[in-house]
């Protein structure tokens, strides 16, 4: 009946690149003969609809069984003759369709609308544009075209809102929980909220806050990097505000989140404007991995429950919100897809027909039972920690959401404080990497908490979703159809589903460690190191201070300034420099270029000949002694491999002059001359921060070097523009901020150390006689 009625029909689908959409495409292709599918796909970036059809849909493993059964070429032919991608965007007027698209849409028999912004952290206006205005635009377009295909709209059970008791398969207006919603006004309000929030984010005190935050995160990498970071933070802030607005508005009207809220409005809106377009609404509950087809446990992307389950398996989450006797309403994706197809195959009804696809009413799984399954599963198949020890799952005690959240919040706050404190300490290298670890842990907690907050709402929502319509449809269909389109929730064996299907999928998808491996930090670093030392690289650029040597410009000056002084004069210089230190440090933190400009004034009037002579002594007695042998070795390795080597430093040219033969080239600022003396003024902008990146780009251009094939070594976030300019950045003895960034971006981190017993003076002093 289903098969026959849909045979040879033309069906348009929105949201085909999504989890449910992909399952739909696969199911229709597999079970309905000669079905013509028109997939409305939004071009993403430079990727066209056609490209996305190939990459995002047909490369998915959902089609593996079908390809295997048909053979690659038959499958290809089938796809070619039965499927067409139509470029469309439901958030734009007329769906942004071109002429061909319009033609295709207007003669469709069925349109399945499954496109939605399902992410729980969707900003209010975006949720409204996509979830609410999307279907409105679709219906309006159809009306304009005078087309009246059977529209099957995918909604959600949670449109019923956060209420206890039975939720019937009826239009919301007929539901006992009905809250009249003015969808037009809500949309306008959402748009206004966006405009207001955008304005708010540009208020000077907010912009200042963002900038401070950017500086706190990055240090002083230069204006443009800070600027783009600030903008990033502003955008994130706006998004957070909009997400919050969505959540708040949804909660105020009794919905768990903006998704359910906007979907509820969409149902009403579409019914209101549909005219004579026949409409079916399918409301699934929480969609999870498949029960049987295309393969048991098939899933696309990470859903809501997975992160919670994984965090539980990993031991980060010890408790779960909700009550043991509560029902968790989940439904495998293949059942939902089948129900949708079944609904679509019905003779277009005059009245809106509604099907709820949910398990709670006819085959409920209780949270306590689910918890036991999960607990058993991870007891038997534990996730391993970094030392390959199994992590023992803890037994849930259901302390209520409040306490779980408090626990998490407390842990998070503690981590945050520790992280902040550590950021302020002058630590580098290995110890700095600890801070990076902390950040990772905090992010994990963050995520777990967000899921808990959200999932908690779903779990605490004790509504029972009626499935009478669904089951009577099931009664009507033939055995053949039942085979092809199983959508009866009663067929699910929950123990088998959780234990044998869902959890193994989650574990595989989550790429957690379940068998002992040596995927340690060391092996990751050695892989990265191999990339860095690949003969294909073209240029290796090095920073000087704390990358090649454990020293800085102040130290060099200290040496040169005191080399020819008597002991008492020397003491005076030390005292004076120490007094200036706090100011200088503060300036350095604000802007390194200013600091250097200011600091180099100290060289004013220094005799050129003498400084040049003393610089060589300094190099031998001081700089080389404080050098990192492995760093110098690294420069040599790059040269041996045929890479060009370049030193870019803010240190003065006479200081680094003796390093010349080590590199192919050195770019360092020089001081202008006044007769026989140095003027204390730099002849050019020192290569620091973004200037360094600019100098590097110019250098690469002049030498026809591809920076994406180049390596850069640096130790601090002030070198961020340079590190970001190359394809293979390496953080050397990173300070905490860079350590965190390097960890986040998967950069190679090297710990180059001076030899034990090398001089460790705060301010090195030159002596005319070496002892």
């Amino acid at each position, binding site marked *: 009946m289903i098969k026959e009625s849909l045979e040879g029909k033309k069906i348009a689908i929105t949201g085909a690149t999504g989890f449910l959409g992909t399952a739909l495409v696969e199911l229709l292709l597999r079970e309905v003969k000669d079905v013509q599918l028109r997939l409305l796909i939004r071009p993403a970036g430079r990727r066209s609809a056609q490209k996305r059809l190939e990459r995002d849909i047909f490369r998915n493993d959902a089609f593996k069984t079908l390809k295997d059964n048909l053979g690659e070429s038959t499958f290809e032919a089938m796809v070619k003759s039965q499927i067409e991608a139509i470029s469309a965007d439901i958030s734009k007027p007329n769906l942004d369709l071109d002429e061909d698209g319009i033609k295709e849409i207007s003669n469709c028999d069925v349109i399945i609308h499954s496109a939605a912004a399902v992410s729980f952290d969707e900003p209010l206006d975006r949720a409204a544009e996509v979830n609410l205005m999307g279907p409105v635009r679709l219906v309006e377009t159809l009306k304009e075209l005078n087309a009246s295909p059977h529209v099957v709209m995918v909604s959600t059970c949670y449109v019923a809102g956060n209420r206890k008791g039975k939720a019937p398969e009826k239009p919301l207006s007929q539901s006992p929980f009905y809250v009249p919603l003015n969808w037009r006004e809500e949309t306008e309000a959402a748009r206004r909220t966006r405009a207001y929030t955008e304005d708010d984010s540009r208020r000077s005190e907010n912009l200042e806050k963002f900038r401070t935050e950017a500086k706190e995160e990055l240090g002083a990498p230069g204006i443009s990097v800070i600027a783009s970071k600030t903008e990033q933070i502003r955008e994130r802030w706006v998004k957070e505000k909009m997400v919050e607005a969505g959540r708040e508005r949804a909660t105020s009207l009794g919905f768990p989140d903006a998704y359910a809220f906007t979907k509820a409005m969409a149902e009403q809106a579409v019914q209101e404007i549909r005219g004579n377009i026949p409409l079916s609404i399918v409301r699934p509950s929480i969609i999870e991995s498949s029960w049987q087809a295309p393969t048991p446990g098939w899933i696309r992307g990470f859903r809501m429950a997975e992160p919670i389950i994984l965090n539980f398996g990993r031991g980060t989450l010890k408790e779960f919100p909700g009550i043991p006797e509560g029902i968790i309403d989940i439904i495998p994706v293949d059942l939902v897809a089948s129900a949708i197809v079944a609904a679509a195959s019905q003779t277009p009804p005059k009245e809106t027909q509604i099907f709820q696809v949910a398990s709670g009413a006819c085959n409920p799984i209780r949270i306590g039972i689910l918890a036991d399954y999960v607990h058993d599963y991870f007891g038997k198949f534990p996730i391993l920690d970094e030392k390959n020890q199994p992590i023992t799952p803890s037994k849930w005690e259901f302390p209520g959401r409040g306490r779980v959240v408090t626990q998490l919040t407390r842990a998070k706050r503690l981590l945050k404080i520790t992280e902040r404190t550590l950021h302020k300490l002058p630590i580098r290298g290995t110890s700095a990497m600890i801070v990076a670890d902390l950040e990772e842990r905090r992010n994990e907690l963050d995520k777990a908490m967000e899921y808990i907050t959200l999932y908690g709402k779903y779990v605490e929502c004790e509504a029972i979703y009626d499935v009478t319509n669904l089951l009577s449809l099931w009664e009507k269909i033939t055995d053949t159809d039942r085979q092809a389109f199983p959508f009866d929730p009663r067929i699910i064996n929950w123990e088998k589903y959780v234990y044998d299907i869902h959890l193994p999928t989650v574990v595989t998808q989550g790429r957690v460690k379940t068998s002992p491996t040596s995927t340690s930090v060391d092996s990751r670093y050695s892989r990265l190191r191999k990339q860095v030392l690949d003969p294909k690289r073209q240029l290796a650029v090095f920073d000087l201070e704390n990358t090649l040597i454990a020293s800085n410009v102040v130290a060099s000056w200290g040496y040169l300034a005191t080399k020819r002084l008597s002991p008492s004069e020397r003491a005076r210089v030390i005292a004076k420099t120490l007094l200036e230190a706090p100011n200088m440090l503060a300036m350095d933190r604000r802007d390194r270029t200013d600091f250097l400009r200011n600091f180099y004034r100290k060289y004013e009037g220094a005799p050129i000949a003498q400084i040049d002579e003393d610089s060589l002594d300094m190099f*031998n007695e001081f700089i080389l002694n404080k050098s990192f042998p492995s760093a110098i*070795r690294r420069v040599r390795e790059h040269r041996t491999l045929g890479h060009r080597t370049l030193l870019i430093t803010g240190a003065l040219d006479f200081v680094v002059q003796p390093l010349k*033969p080590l590199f192919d080239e050195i770019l360092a600022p020089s001081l202008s001359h006044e007769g026989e003396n140095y003027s204390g003024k730099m002849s050019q902008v020192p290569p620091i921060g973004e200037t360094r990146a600019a100098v590097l780009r110019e250098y690469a251009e002049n030498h026809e070097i591809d920076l994406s094939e180049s390596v850069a070594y640096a130790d601090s976030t002030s070198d961020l523009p340079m590190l970001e300019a190359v394809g293979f950045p390496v953080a050397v003895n990173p300070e905490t901020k860079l350590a965190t960034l390097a960890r986040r971006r998967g950069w190679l981190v090297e710990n180059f150390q001076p*030899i*034990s017993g090398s001089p*460790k003076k705060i301010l090195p002093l030159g002596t005319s006689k*070496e002892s």
Partner: protein
Amino acid sequence: MANNRRKHPRPGLVLEVDRTTPPTLFHHGENFKLEKLPPGRSRIIYPAEPLPGMVNPNQAIRDALENPLGDSPPLSALLFSGMKLTIAFDDISLPLPPMRKPDIRQRVIEAVLDTAAAAGVDDVHLIAALALHRRMTEAELRHAVGDRVYDAFSPSGAIYNHDAEDPEGMVSIGTTPHGEEVQINKRAAESDLIVYVNINLVSMDGGWKSTATGLSGYTALRHHHNPQTMVKSKSFMDQENSELHKSNWRQGKVLKDSGIKVFQIETTVNNNTFGYDGPLAMLQKREWEWTLKDRALFLGMQGGIKRMSTQARRKAFMGWESPYEITSVQAGEVEAVHKQTTENVYKQHLVKVDGQTDVLTMGLPYICPYNVNSVMNPILVACLGLGYFFNMYKGKPLVKKGGVVIMTHPTPWEFHPVHHPSYIDFFDRVLSETTDAVEMSQKYEKAFAEDEWYRHLYRTSYAYHGVHPFYMWYWCSHALEHLSQVIIVGGQPEAVRRMGFRPASTIQDALEIASDTVGFSPSITHYHSPPILMADVT
């Protein structure tokens, strides 16, 4: 005090270890170990006690200058007004540890300068004959020649380090019948007379090696500083049987035939390395003769060392200056002088040893010729043990062919960034690929020798020449060819393995490892040095 110094010092000793033998001292880098050797099959070779020093060394020096050996006129007869005089002297690698002031070089140079001044010579240069070693710092030069000499010559730039990479500063003299190129410092070559001031610490030093090597460069040195020559030098401490020396002597003949005049002054010192009394005196005593005070001092020292930072420990050890006494001065024609000198060296060092051993043990000290005021890196550990100590024999090697050497040293994976830059690359790049001296010499030696960065550091900083780590490895060639295994007790495992040796945590473990090749009850000989001893094995 005085009773510690013997009027008739006892010669070296070979002690058979029995149950009553107290634990034996092993040097262990900047530390010491006391080890029990298996009784019944172990023996310990002790160096001879220090020979009496000269009562009036300054007078002895003057006498030697005026009563030269061989066919040389007295020094005063060789000096004349208006001449060019070059005084070349041994560098920081001699003696070891550095000697207390005044250094012999200072005494000899002052005497030579006095004679030169009397003859009206005013064009005098002083050159540290360091070949491809690192340059000496001002402080080190001052220590060697004394402040008075340094201050007199430094302002005019007449005292300096030899620079074998100065294209303007080196000249080719010719080629030996064996095809070996001869090269020398240009100033020395153009001088009317070269006076060479040597310290003959071990029998390898001196003779033509002073000028033909010390004032030479890579072009000439590669003809004898290579694996082929070193394998044929059995040992390089025994001139009669050393291909290294034969090659140097051939080069010396070319120098002589070209008209270059060398007045050689050689000196010897006794075995008073650690003093008759003082904090380290027990190190040159035999363990069963340690007094209560010696034991207490030793324990205290070990405790102190443990608590010191790396930096403090290194400073303390490198600060030790030996109270050597001068035992002889010879001057005149190179070969005649050196014959006499060698006899005097042997008098102090040779110890008669009967028969070879399966296992040779040695405790490696904190210093070797190439890490004065520096770090003893793994390559230098290998060189000290397998180059120097292993070759301290005349006749037959102490250890049988196919035997095992067990040495103790922490062997840290650490390199001095100023002194040993090319060692870092050598260790990382060359040794990770091959430990075969011949293979590495063919594949890598030239590139290291001609590397611009190393050349720059050798000439302007204080780095050993780029090729130097190769020479260190070649020095081990004879031992590596002779032995079946080398085990380093207490060494950093990765560093030890990189060199193709086996790390062990205790002597017992080392003997267990050695049993693979020498069985479970091998004969063991402990080479108890420093102070220096040379085994005369029959």
